[in-house]
């Protein structure tokens, strides 16, 4: 799947100075499946907005967004539901975990839709993310950093063409971030998927095909 943005800009960005932006000032931006994109920008430059528009949870934008040459404006409820189940995965900045469910149940909530990952695989990934001992705990009592890793693991438990990761290492230390990035990259590679990762800073250690500034 390709993602193409034609002069797309979220409406709130119109009121800001976007000079020098690698996306908002560009005529047409194209993302290709299988490649890793890292978008770095300061707060309020529209990182979350960009990903949200692509994911269909923000509709206030100007311009066009195409997924595989289809205008996302024409998508139905069903289309979006299928896309989010099988083509697009999102690691939300706000995590969107259910506090009353355990970490594992949160993960299963996603995984049970398509049974994408086996229980062994989930355990293995949890181990690598340093989550193994927290899987049975309620998500609400985990630290934000732990929750963030639960959200990462959940996002990997579905088939996808693109993984949209919104500041997903913001509360994880450098060492664990690198481990987590490794897990993400492996899953993307095994799915031949693209990765669009946004971050405030400190991404220089993360490997990527394309780096952009907003």
């Amino acid at each position: 799947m390709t993602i193409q943005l034609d002069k797309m800009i979220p409406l709130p960005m119109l009121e800001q100075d976007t000079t020098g932006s690698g996306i908002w000032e560009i005529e047409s931006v194209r993302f290709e499946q299988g490649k890793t994109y890292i978008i770095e920008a300061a707060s309020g430059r529209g990182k979350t907005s960009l990903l949200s528009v692509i994911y269909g949870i923000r509709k206030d934008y100007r311009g066009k967004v195409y997924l595989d040459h289809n205008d996302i404006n024409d998508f139905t409820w069903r289309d979006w539901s299928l896309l989010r189940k099988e083509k697009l995965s999102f690691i939300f900045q706000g995590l969107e975990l259910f506090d009353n469910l355990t970490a594992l149940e949160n993960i299963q909530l996603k995984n049970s839709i398509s049974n994408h990952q086996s229980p062994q695989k989930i355990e293995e990934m949890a181990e690598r993310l340093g989550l193994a001992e927290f899987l049975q705990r309620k998500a609400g009592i985990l630290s934000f950093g732990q929750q963030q890793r639960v959200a990462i693991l959940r996002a990997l438990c579905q088939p996808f063409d693109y993984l949209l990761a919104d500041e997903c290492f913001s509360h994880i230390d450098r060492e664990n971030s690198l481990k987590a990035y490794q897990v993400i990259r492996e899953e993307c590679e095994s799915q031949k998927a693209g990765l669009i990762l946004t971050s405030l800073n400190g991404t220089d250690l993360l490997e990527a095909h394309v780096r952009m500034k907003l």
Partner: protein
Amino acid sequence: MRYLYSILWKDHSRTHLLWAFLGTTAGFVLLLAGIQFYLDIKSVLSQNQDLMDPEYIVINKKVNIGQTLGLVMAGFSPEEIEEIASQPFADQVAPFLSNNFPVSGYTENERFPDFYTDLFFEAIPDEYIDVKSEDWNWSPESGNIPIIIPQDYLNLYNFGFAPSQGLPQIPKGVISMININIRLKGQGRGNYDDYPGRIVGFSNRIHSILVPHDFLIWANEKYGYFKKTDPSQVILVSKDPTDPAIIKFLEEKGYDTIREKLKSSRMNIILKFIISFLVVIASIIIALAFLVFLLSLQLMISRSSEKIRRLNKLGYHYREISRPYVVLLLILMVGVTGLSLLITSILTRQFSSMAGEWSLDISSSLYGIIYGTALGLITLIFFSNVVAILVSTKKLCK
């Protein structure tokens, strides 16, 4: 999917749903039991009617002061008779024929005290008369005039008049043996004839002194000289005397009848009134309960709105998100239907055994229409709630 249920069912308000459940059940029981009992009583009424066959209803105009003063005609005009005959409840209608010449009767018998009285006669075709007697025939040649009087007249004499005056009571058979001379007077002095007359029967149906129809036609022809008047009574045959339209019609027109005869019609009206009252109450209860259901589910959805948005972000279609609510609703609806049918059938059985003691034959099982009504209503409530659920979850999704 099971996670969806445990996430979304958490936010229900048990009290709201319980009250909605109980309220709907109560409304349903009231409505279903009302319909069941209405049908029961209706069938009892029409069963009783079968015993009596079609009802013969004698109608007259209410007597008022206008008639006393001779300002208003007390009789039925041909148009009015036509109107009565055209009513859907009227199967047959016949006006009473009365004598338009003076009639008197007297006895000459050494075994009974003599008496003399002025009389009147009325006649209707034979098929309306409840007395079947071989003696009930007349021909100009035989001259014998058979007479039918109301059973009540004899009772009045035997149980009222005779004991108080020290007179003997007279059995029916003896009365029939008394020869009565009937004097029919034409216009002019000395223009009269005496005929032998005899009481041949006693009617429970018609409160009048009846003679054969043929005879009265003949006699009116021969002796009659009064100005012709409209018949003051009309007999009406109705196959369904329970029809409340009869009473309504009579009241609208200011006609009168022996009320007893129309007891079932009157009962039907009262019954219908009670039942419609019950139905209105039941409908209000059901409507309120429906609203409580609607509001409880909406409340549940709005309490879960964050969760619903989150699930939507994770890729759940709003229809999938609605499913736990629909399933909950379905469970409650099935519960309401089951419970209210159960209670109604228990009530029915109780009612039936109670009615059995009064020797009324009432069905102890529910009528088919009861199941139909319950099913229809519950489906209506269910689907309108499903629509409301879908609309409100959709609103939360993107």
